[in-house]
């Protein structure tokens, strides 16, 4: 059975750089997920996807990513990582660092 449609944003990779990009509210492609257009209607989302698939320049591999409509945060881990970048950077911590969770706690205070 096909999965029920969930509010989504339209995302793809930029042809030149491969970076994750999003269809924005003004119809352009943006790196900024906060500027993405929320597609709450299945038919309109499908039409937007079809139009993107027909594009042969600018973007590659478009797809609909389900999001939380209130925050535009992607629901799938994969889409969340596409949006924020890798959770790791090379040699992010010095060797021998212990108990990282405890050290990180104070930084998690929300603004």
């Amino acid at each position, binding site marked *: 059975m096909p999965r029920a449609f969930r509010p989504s944003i339209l995302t793809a*990779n930029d*042809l*030149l*750089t*491969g*970076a*994750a990009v999003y269809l924005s509210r003004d119809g352009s492609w943006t790196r900024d997920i906060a500027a993405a257009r929320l597609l709450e209607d299945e038919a309109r989302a499908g039409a937007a996807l079809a139009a993107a698939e027909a594009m*042969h*320049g600018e973007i*590659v*591999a478009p797809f609909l990513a389900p999001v939380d409509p209130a925050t535009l945060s992607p*629901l*799938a*881990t*994969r889409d969340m*990582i*596409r949006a924020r*970048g*890798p*959770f*790791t*950077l*090379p*040699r*992010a*911590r*010095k*060797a*021998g*660092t*212990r*108990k*990282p969770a405890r050290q990180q706690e104070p930084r998690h205070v929300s603004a």
Partner: protein
Amino acid sequence: MYQPDSFDHAFLAHRCAQFRSQVAQRLSGALTEEEFRPLRLMNGLYLQLHAYMLRVAIPYGTLSARQMRALADLAERWDRGYGHFTTRQNIQFNWIALSQTPDIMDHLAQAGLHAVQTSGNTIRNVTTDPFAGAAADEIEDPRPIAELIRQWSTDHPEFQFLPRKFKIAVSASPADRAITRAHDIGLRLVRNDADETGIEVSVGGGLGRTPMLGQVLVPFAAKADLIAWLEAVLHVYNLLGRRDNKYKARLKIAVREMGIDDFRARVKERFQQIRAAYHGAGLGLLARIEHFFTPPPRTEKPLGACEAALASDPRFARWARNNTAPHKRADHAIVIIPLKSPGAVPGDASAGQMRLMADLAERHSHGELRVTQSQNIVLPHVHRADLPALHAALARAGLAAANAGLASDIIACPGLDYCALATARSIPVAQDIARRVEALKIEHEIGPLSIKISGCINACAHHHLGEIGILGLDRAGAENYQITLGGQAEAPARLGERAGPGFPADEITDAVERLLLGYLALRTDAEESFAACYRRLGPAPFRSLLYPDAERGKHPRHAA
């Protein structure tokens, strides 16, 4: 080392010009993505989550200092200052822009490097023992055979559109550090009773979603017949391999479905047809190739200072004991540089680290480096007198972790942090486990132990061959980690067995800690490896360690 000749240079120049034209056509819109994708994949260019990824071939894992510097330059000029060494002895760059790839290819070609056949359904970069040409236990250097295969397989017209990718590995020591049985074709140089060198050919190995170890096709093939045997196997596979289902398209499935005896009969039939045409072909070439792999000149140096440092400096002594392997020459050592300082990204090296390793290779290892299947770097020919200076230089760059082959020397694929195919993150899990191992301070007590973490079923990190293998999956939208136990990469290779239900991300490190501490209590003595202990006791005590609540009735699910 092999030096590219005019043919190699002309071929690479042609490929670079061809690819430049293809990229221009894609950017102008003359080629659609569908048309362009197979062309970029033939040149090792993938589209990943955040950018294009370029997989550069390092033929049989051998690099010159100059080539390592070229990789460092690439990382700095066109990427984000680092690269990721892989279990296939290659390097991947994660932040590549399509528009810059033609210049990158030209840059690589100037150093004799390329990305040809690092993707696509063709014969991939041939791999071998990272200690080749230096190992005390090898019959002979397997790299001339590997280079012969590279030349034969590069742009081979019959084998550019195989049913699926095809991997060949060569080794020449009983330890089989190239893990030949986990490849479509595994070649092991062996000696017969008459002390002649021949080649044991195995077929049908591979990991991924259907892990299998290869079976022997020919126990002792003459070197003169090698190319004919390879052609025959590839020819039969090209016709038999399933093209209707990519998950059943690998050689291992064809061999399993038809049985090794029937497969052998078909290969032999083809071999007999072509043997006369091929017999001896390549032998002259092989002899010329062998000239490039002569051992480095012998040097005499006093060992007194090294012996004194071993006695007086425990940190150096531990590194020298743990991160070196026996060399053919007693006064030399093979030095392993783990890219695994606890907390680091397994296999990642910064441009600065690459340049330092290139400098150290020039100073201490006749200008040569290797990439290992464990995502580490090797300096193959280090005089033991140089070890203290080498250790000091590595320590200054954070590359002297004395953990080669230990529990924090974890193999991990890029996983869901980068890879479009991944179902779960693997690098953060590896970092967390390595930090835990470091904090527990038990890895030297444990001794050699392999932990391998793949972020999807394709098994790039060889998790089936880990004594503790971890496979990251997506379970209803959440990352979940399945454990396999008892695998073994070194000969005789063994596939691990699934232990039971998977663990959520925040429980996997605790589960591994229970296994490590439990193993210390279960083993007979320090000589009994984790894999040997698992074979002796079976899965039950290890499952009890992993699922303590199940025994108390809190966990109703039983291991599959």
